């Protein structure tokens, strides 16, 4: 009896919110877009969508691992998860993936094949793995180019010497990486790692939300998000922000856990994920729940094809993906053309 009453009370509350939201949408469309002659039917479908999505909770809800939480809460809870794992993040990565995550990140860089002089935005970069690799890669390519140039100039002809008088030889440019993360703890750990590794120039650390990046348009050559996009509440918004901050011709790359196609491997992987990983989390980092969230959030992330379509929706071209380790991890890549 009381259960029925509480349910109706909740539903009444959610109904009251809906008309307000419809009015908001109407106002927005009047200001921004073309008049939709389908008019009322649009909003009816939207209303029915809201009804089935919100259910008993007030407002939209989303998934947090296998739980369902209101959208506003998800960001906060993810923040808390990473705040607590920040110190042991790298150690846990090595333990859980048996060190293979290094190979995955190396594959991402090899696929990117960056030339010297590019600007990288490493979103959800946290402890800076991708940025360090990026800087190392471009620096070694740059040294190779300089060496090649020096060798070519060993015995210059008098014409080359005369031609070289005016221009002071264009050297290949320096590349720069910006690590952006919503979580200050992760950035702190990253900065300490940078200091120990001795990387001082070409690296910046910025606090920012992937759904609302604190950068101007057309800033970066490459945007990467490694193992971060499944933690974002609104993935489409993150993709659109990526499109915004990339220069024309810029590349979007996403390294993320994905669906394993092989059924045998899938069963082994599931067993390992749900039995071993939270245990490792408890033993090494003293945090069972965060690693439970980790493996659950992997299962909730869309599969390779669905994610590829989402990236195309956002406006990227030539979207491709590569499976690593049999589909455990996938690298998606798209271009802003």
């Amino acid at each position: 009896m009381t259960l029925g009453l509480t349910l109706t009370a909740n539903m009444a509350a959610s109904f009251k919110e809906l008309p307000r939201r419809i009015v908001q949408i109407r106002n927005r469309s009047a200001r921004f877009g073309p008049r939709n002659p389908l008019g009322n039917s649009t909003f009816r479908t939207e209303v029915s969508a809201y009804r089935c999505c919100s259910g008993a909770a007030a407002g939209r809800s989303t998934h947090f691992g296998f739980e369902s939480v209101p959208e506003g809460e998800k960001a906060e809870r993810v923040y808390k998860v990473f705040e607590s794992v920040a110190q042991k993040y790298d150690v846990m990565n090595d333990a859980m993936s048996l060190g293979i995550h290094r190979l995955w990140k190396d594959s991402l860089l090899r696929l990117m094949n960056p030339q010297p002089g590019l600007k990288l935005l490493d979103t959800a970069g946290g402890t800076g793995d991708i940025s360090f690799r990026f800087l190392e890669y471009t620096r070694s390519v740059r040294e190779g180019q300089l060496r090649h140039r020096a060798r070519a100039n060993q015995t210059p002809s008098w014409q080359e010497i005369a031609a070289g008088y005016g221009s002071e030889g264009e050297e290949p440019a320096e590349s720069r990486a910006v690590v952006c993360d919503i979580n200050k703890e992760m950035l702190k750990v990253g900065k300490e790692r940078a200091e120990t590794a001795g990387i001082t120039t070409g690296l910046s650390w910025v606090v920012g939300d992937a759904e609302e990046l604190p950068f101007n348009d057309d800033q970066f050559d490459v945007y990467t998000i490694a193992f971060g996009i499944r933690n974002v509440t609104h993935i489409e918004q993150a993709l659109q922000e990526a499109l915004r901050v990339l220069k024309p011709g810029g590349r979007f790359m996403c390294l993320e856990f994905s669906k394993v196609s092989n059924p045998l491997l899938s069963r082994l992987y599931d067993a390992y994920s749900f039995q071993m990983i939270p245990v490792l989390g408890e033993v090494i980092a003293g945090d069972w729940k965060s690693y439970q969230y980790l493996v659950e959030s992997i299962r909730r992330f869309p599969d390779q094809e669905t994610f590829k379509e989402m990236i195309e929706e956002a406006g990227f071209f030539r979207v491709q993906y590569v499976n690593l380790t049999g589909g455990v991890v996938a690298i998606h890549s798209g271009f802003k053309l």
Partner: protein
Amino acid sequence: MAALIRSLRAVRSLRGLGSAVVATTCPASLYGGLRRGFHRAALLASDSKSDQTVPPPSHHEHYQAQEPRQGSSTFSTEQASASDPGTQHEDPWPNTSYQDQSGEQAEDYETEDQLQARILTAALEFVPQHGWTVEAIAAGAETLGLSAASAGMFDNGAGDLVLHFVGQCNVQLTEILAEEHNQVQLGQAEKKKTADFLRHAVETRLRMLVPYIDTWPQAMSLLLLPHNIPESLKHLSTLVDDIWYYAGDRSTDMSWYTRRAALTGIYNTTELVMVQDSSPDFEETWVFLDNRIRDVVNMANTAKQVQATGEAVVQGLMGAAVTLKNITGVNQRR
């Protein structure tokens, strides 16, 4: 800044709303392609109407100016009239061919390929400096206003650049030969003999390599990589076929194969000679070419002579045998 971002997000959610509308009204089979098409339609619509939207990157506008056919194909479907009355573009060439399921937008397929071709053509001018490498492609992309990261579009890297160049040269050669053919048909020029025509065609084609001759060995080695061999063989065979076609070869027997094999041999060997030739204007190469063509022609003549001689010899032997039979009386016929 934050207010701008929020208003942009509002516009984008509206676009998402627009595509959600389409989602509920489209038949499932066309869902994917049309949905993307309408997303672009909404993009064009909102861009043309409101000033508060993010201006598309200059490159998009460049396309919209250049390619009138893209972005408008889906307007021709019946769904378009229902959802977007405000922006009907004139569309002289409705491009409704959908490409394979790899997910490329139908109306942008040509543009993407054309864009790649443009990047590679722009990259050619950096080849003398950087060689046939991904750096040249990156430099070429930068001259077009794109970021150097777009060189990652080419899975085959430098191989793509070389194959594009070879294809381009073959197309140019075909155009030149077609033009000359027209002139001969109109009576404005003399018809060349086969040997002269072959020499002229091969020389024209090889002269296109002259600006890149220093780095051409690198290009040849790229063409010989196993994953590039099918493509490079295809280019070579179309080249040889085109030259023989304009030389007037309409044969349908074994000579079709022997002629093309001979010309392939001539072309490849002359290319190798050219790469290490240091004489002024590659004179030695053209002398070598002359000699090879003469050899082939001689060989053809010799082959005919050998056949005729062989027939005559066989007839002579038959006659001698009959005479011998008559003399010895073995021959029964009297």
